[in-house]
């Protein structure tokens, strides 16, 4: 499976949302993307892509799009 599909599925499973709202999705943009949900998302991304995201990047990870930029720092190209 390509990274973009894995990335999308992680968001959809973590927040129980559909693919059509991902493009513009931001932190706290849906009910489940609160601080608790954020840690669930980060844990899933770290597990799936076998990376450890720095605290500054966890805090900066503010949207679906921004996340792609952040993951690129860890050599995960979405």
């Amino acid at each position, binding site marked *: 499976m390509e990274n973009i599909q894995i990335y999308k599925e992680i968001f959809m499973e973590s927040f129980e949302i559909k693919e059509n709202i991902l493009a513009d999705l931001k932190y706290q943009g849906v009910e489940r993307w609160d601080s*608790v949900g954020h*840690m*669930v998302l*980060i*844990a*899933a991304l*770290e*597990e799936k892509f076998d990376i*450890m995201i720095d*605290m500054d990047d966890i805090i900066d990870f503010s949207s679906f799009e921004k996340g792609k930029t952040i993951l690129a720092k860890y050599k995960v190209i979405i």
Partner: protein
Amino acid sequence: MMLKNKTALITGSNRGIGFSLLKRFASEGCNIYAHSRKPNIEFEKKTKEISAKNNIEIQHIHFDLRQSSEIRNGIMAIIKTKAPIDILVNSAGIIHGGLFQMTTVQTIKDVFSVNFFGMLEVTQLVSKYMIRKKKGSIINIASVAGIDLSAGNCAYGTSKAAVIAFSKTLSSELSAHGIRVNVIAPSLTDTEMAHTIEAKKEKTILSDNKEPFKRMARPEEIANSVCFLASEKSSFINGEVIRVDGGNKF
């Protein structure tokens, strides 16, 4: 066995309460990441014997709690193995006693760097890993000094008070992820640390041989309480601070 097939990271496991925890956890079937600041041949020899006796694995991990990069590298080395960390016991710490007006601010910062900030960094990395598994038990070793806060505790006592406060707030945050956080607050315990000059006052209070509890705690008595909190037997205990002090107040 209370901890069969679990894996624990114990900081400061090479001596004192930490070593007692290592022995107890091993006897309960737990595999252990045994942290110490530096490699030590004598300690490695002892853990080989403990590992063989209890048929569990003990792996050594070294980092200085004052060095963020060492902590990160150390924890990352564990995470890369993909082995779970079911239990984290933050046992490493340093002692200091002295009146505030005779203690430099740098000394207070040094004590906090190990007892509090180093513990924070380990916990932040390990708890993030535990969130993936949606379960875990974190036990922080504080001290009655962090509760009673008598004179002479501007560094050690306040650092342990910070550990207690942090543990309570963390228990509220991590409960959503199935992770419990609790504290054990021992009174003076019969270890090397107890025989330092800093512990002189407490030793004097506890030297009355007429009463059965007017004594130092035994390290295994502390280990019993920690083992309980690490196990499923305490599955609904979260955010608690348990004094293990024989009822003594300082």
